[in-house]
């Protein structure tokens, strides 16, 4: 493999930038951003509006409120990642738009890098909005002091997990022929298959530290009072729950991001419009 082939030149950076702009325009025009934006606003708003309506109190602490609110951020990340990334490569082949795109004077790797970054920006934008709304709610309930370092850590971990999710779905998009397959395989892998595998490993008392969705629990775990906290070996349920380690989790998510992104680039570059 010629590594230089994948190292962008100045001209390639310009093409990557143009592709990012074009992809963002496509996301906007297909109302994908609008749909996910609505979800990113609506979900935290439910946690803010519903308790007073039911005469329920908010959590005692800001971190407690954040942990329950952010319990849905993983789902939003997976949904956004699948929506923005699922068809980014496979769609060009399936819909034959690649006949227009790949015959232009730019390296295919610049096109794919642009597409990846655009998906990443869109997903991170949605996640950021979710955190922004949650933070505004925290400020309105608990005051500005309610915004803790842990919430900031959670936000950074959510962004890192978004990268992993986009890389995973991007990988499927680079190898699969149909957009619906690449989107659904990515979505269900992250939503169901990997959590099931995690559960199987847990039952077998093997630490699933290498599974990315297991490490995504860190997003709420770092807040401290969330729903993903480990309880240690088998006190109540007679089986072990493994709590992901922060640095190991960061490493695993980073590894998924980098390895799958690079593999996707190579796989997509090798695909031909037959």
């Amino acid at each position: 493999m010629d590594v230089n082939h994948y190292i962008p030149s100045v001209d390639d950076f310009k093409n990557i930038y143009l592709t990012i702009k074009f992809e963002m325009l496509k996301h906007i025009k297909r109302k994908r951003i609008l749909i996910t934006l609505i979800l990113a606003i609506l979900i935290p708003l439910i946690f803010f509006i519903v308790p007073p309506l039911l005469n329920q109190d908010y959590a005692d602490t800001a971190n407690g409120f954040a942990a329950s609110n952010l319990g849905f951020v993983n789902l939003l990340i997976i949904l956004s990642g699948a929506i923005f990334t699922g068809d980014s490569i496979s769609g060009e082949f399936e819909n034959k738009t690649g006949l227009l795109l790949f015959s232009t004077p730019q390296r295919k790797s610049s096109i794919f890098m642009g597409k990846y970054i655009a998906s990443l920006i869109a997903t991170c934008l949605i996640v950021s909005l979710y955190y922004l709304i949650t933070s505004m709610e925290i400020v309105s309930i608990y005051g500005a002091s309610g915004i803790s370092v842990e919430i900031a850590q959670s936000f950074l971990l959510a962004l890192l997990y978004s990268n992993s999710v986009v890389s995973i779905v991007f990988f499927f998009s680079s190898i699969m022929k149909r957009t619906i397959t690449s989107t659904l395989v990515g979505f269900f892998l992250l939503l169901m298959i990997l959590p099931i595998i995690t559960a199987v490993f847990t039952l077998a008392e093997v630490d699933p530290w290498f599974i990315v969705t297991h490490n995504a629990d860190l997003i709420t775990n770092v807040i401290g009072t969330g729903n993903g906290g480990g309880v240690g070996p088998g006190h109540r349920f007679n089986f072990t729950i493994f709590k992901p380690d922060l640095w190991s989790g960061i490493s695993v998510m980073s590894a998924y991001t980098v390895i799958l992104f690079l593999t996707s680039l190579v796989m997509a570059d090798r695909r031909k419009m037959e």
Partner: protein
Amino acid sequence: MLSKTVECPKCKTHITIQGNPRETTIVLCPNCNTKGKFTFQKEKADLETISDHNIIEVKNLTKMFNGFKALDNVSFNVNKGEILGFVGPNGAGKTTTIKLLTNLLTPTTGHAYINNIDVNKNPTKALLLVGSLIEVPGIYDYLTPHEMLTYFGQIHRMNKNEINQKIKEVLKIVKLSEWEHKKIGSFSTGMQRRLAIAKAILHCPAILILDEPVIGLDPRGIKDVRDMLKQFKNKGVTIFLSSHLLNEVKETCDRIIFLDAGKVITQGTIEEILNRIKIDTIEVEFLNQLTEVDIKKIENIPEINSFEKENVFFKIKFDGKPETSNKILTKLTEQGLKVVSFSTKKADLESFYVSIMNDEKGVI
């Protein structure tokens, strides 16, 4: 490699420089030693500076798909300003060739060059001067023509004003001006085809590679594309045109390559091809229905090899020599047969196509 003649701002000496598109080169005046910089702009340099011969060159191109040989050692070239027709039945390898020329496929062996640049090795440079329309491409149906063409203009490093101006120009050419800001999803197949043509010509390419450009177009659209191709030819654009429509090819092309089963069967100018066609059929119309006796008389003319009849119309096969044709006419009238019209069938590409292609594959 592009070349350009620039003028020294001090002594007005003309200096010829060479470089690649988008490359900035230092220019030193040999007369007054003034130094300056020049950046090669693709749009301005292309037509004047591309090589005069073999603007497209295909050398021993072979393409295998899972053991199937789609192209078998194909070689040909296209000269600057020429329109080359690429003709062959379905599955002959026309689109495969075009995809190899536009880097959508990689050759198994052989090379495809555009302006002396190997397309497979350096596609970004090779495709700078190319506008292409391949198969029936998908269109981003949620965008408007303006939005889609803007991106492709930017990829060709056109500035905003240039893009806006060119979009209006090309949409006018393809008769889509009123649709510039409407969603492509609402377009008919023909309109989408015309938009794909607009994309191909947006950046004023020096080379056009077109795969069945008139598919899905109505007769008016076909005529518009034909006129457009002639206009481009007059501007010196080199055109590589794959088509099933032999009359279109005859109307627009300077030269034709016939391809079948992945091999070049024959090639030549339209005139050369037509000269190769053996005219061996005479179409005769008689005044009245012929009797059995009359038909016997025709059968007894030795110069006639065979004939088919339909009412008063006869198709007579002969050896193709003009003197034989003359003898047949003389003998028919001598026999007292009342001939209304007598003409040798005109040479056309369709006859030639059918004669050289395998009948089983000869789907036009």
